[in-house]
């Protein structure tokens, strides 16, 4: 970045931004990134410039720097539409670097800001689809991390139990040898081998059955009837049917009608379905795989 002593010059910043936009549109993301960086040095209070640069950085897969830029943007307390962009880009960079819990936090803020935009009819409303998808992806990655830990934990328990059995066996054999009963050692060792074998089998069976029992089926109540995906933010129409906000919005753009009755339906008529939202959230907590069933 250029030195801090450059005098603020918004007009010059705008000039650089325009040049940057041209590069960006032509697919020259490295060039655009450089120009946006110049623009920021001439007008470091202009939050929009940060989102432009961070978007270019995302395209260049320079995720760590994209995170910094998004965070700088957010710290300027930008207007909602820019804050929405910054959080969305922040979440994308965080998930790319496999930080699912941070990414989920950012994506949730982006989603909340986007719902506001939907309500006031702002430009950011167009992002509801991709943002919804990102929130779900973060949830899935978080679940994968937890699932891996759980499996590792179970493996750990098994090795502890086996170690315990082996300690028992050693103590037993030690006593036998002390009493001069060498001929019984073989039998005792055989018995413990059997026990350890049995223990392993039991664990295997438990793991297998647990997966079999959880037949990986997504219940209909948490599925959106338009995308057939698990709902993140269900909204209900007056028929009582719920849809995910992102997919019903997509439908209303084309046709302002209720998908079931074809009666007129406006965005303002949609009501959040909080109980269903909580239920879907709980289901995903346990079944992160369902994001991609």
């Amino acid at each position, binding site marked *: 970045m250029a030195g801090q002593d450059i005098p603020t010059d918004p007009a010059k910043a705008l000039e650089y931004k325009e040049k940057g936009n041209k590069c960006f549109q032509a697919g020259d993301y490295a060039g655009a990134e450089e120009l946006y960086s110049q623009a920021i040095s001439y007008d470091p209070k202009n939050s929009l410039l940060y989102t432009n640069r961070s978007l270019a950085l995302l395209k260049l897969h320079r995720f760590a720097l994209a995170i910094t830029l998004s965070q700088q943007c957010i710290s300027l307390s930008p207007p909602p539409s820019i804050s929405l962009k910054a959080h969305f880009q922040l979440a994308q960079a965080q998930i790319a670097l496999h930080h699912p819990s941070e990414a989920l936090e950012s994506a949730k803020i982006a989603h909340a800001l986007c719902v506001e935009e939907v309500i006031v009819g702002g430009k950011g409303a167009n992002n509801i689809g991709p943002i919804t998808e990102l929130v779900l992806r973060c949830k899935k990655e978080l679940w994968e991390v937890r699932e891996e830990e759980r499996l590792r934990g179970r493996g750990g328990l098994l090795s502890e139990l086996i170690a315990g059995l082996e300690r028992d066996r050693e103590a037993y054999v030690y006593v036998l040898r002390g009493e001069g009963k060498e001929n019984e050692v073989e039998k005792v060792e055989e018995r413990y081998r059997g026990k350890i074998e049995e223990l392993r089998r039991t664990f295997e069976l438990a793991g297998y059955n647990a997966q079999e029992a959880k037949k990986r089926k997504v219940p209909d109540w948490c599925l959106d009837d338009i995308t057939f*995906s698990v709902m993140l933010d269900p909204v209900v129409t007056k028929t009582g049917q719920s849809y995910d906000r992102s*997919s019903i919005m997509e439908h209303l753009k084309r046709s302002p009608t209720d*998908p079931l009755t074809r009666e007129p339906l406006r965005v303002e008529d949609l009501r959040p379905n909080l109980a269903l939202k909580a239920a879907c959230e709980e289901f995903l907590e346990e079944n992160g795989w369902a994001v991609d069933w």
Partner: protein
Amino acid sequence: MATSFATKRLSKELNKINGQLPPGISLVKADDFQEWQLDIKVLDNNPIYLNQTYRLMFKFSSSYPIEPPEVTFLACPDRPIPMHPHIYSNGIICLDLLGMQGWSPVQNVESICMSLQSMLTGNTKNERPEGDQQFVANNRRRPRDIDFYYHDNTV
């Protein structure tokens, strides 16, 4: 978006279809997410359709199911175009729910097949739409762009 709206939804439909389909409906071909073929049969004893199987062709745009699929009957050996006052002899179907106005994204491939089955089941007229020959000879438009004139709502 990484994968299109349509691809995601269609892969889920395909999962379901591969599991089970209602009687008289069977999947013939679904090699990609642009074009599928299914066979349907009429299940009652309607003499017009007795012992016949009909082939349906579905074409999906990338914005399915927000946009309707293009659904036509396909003529091939052993698969004629069914006689119906709303089905042209080139396979184009005039059905409200497949049009831009009548379509709803909660419809799906299975529900469309069932609607077409019942459209045939309920029909008693062994005839083509009015002006069939002329329409078939002149039409160059895609079915979804045609404003069908629903001249006879009794069938």
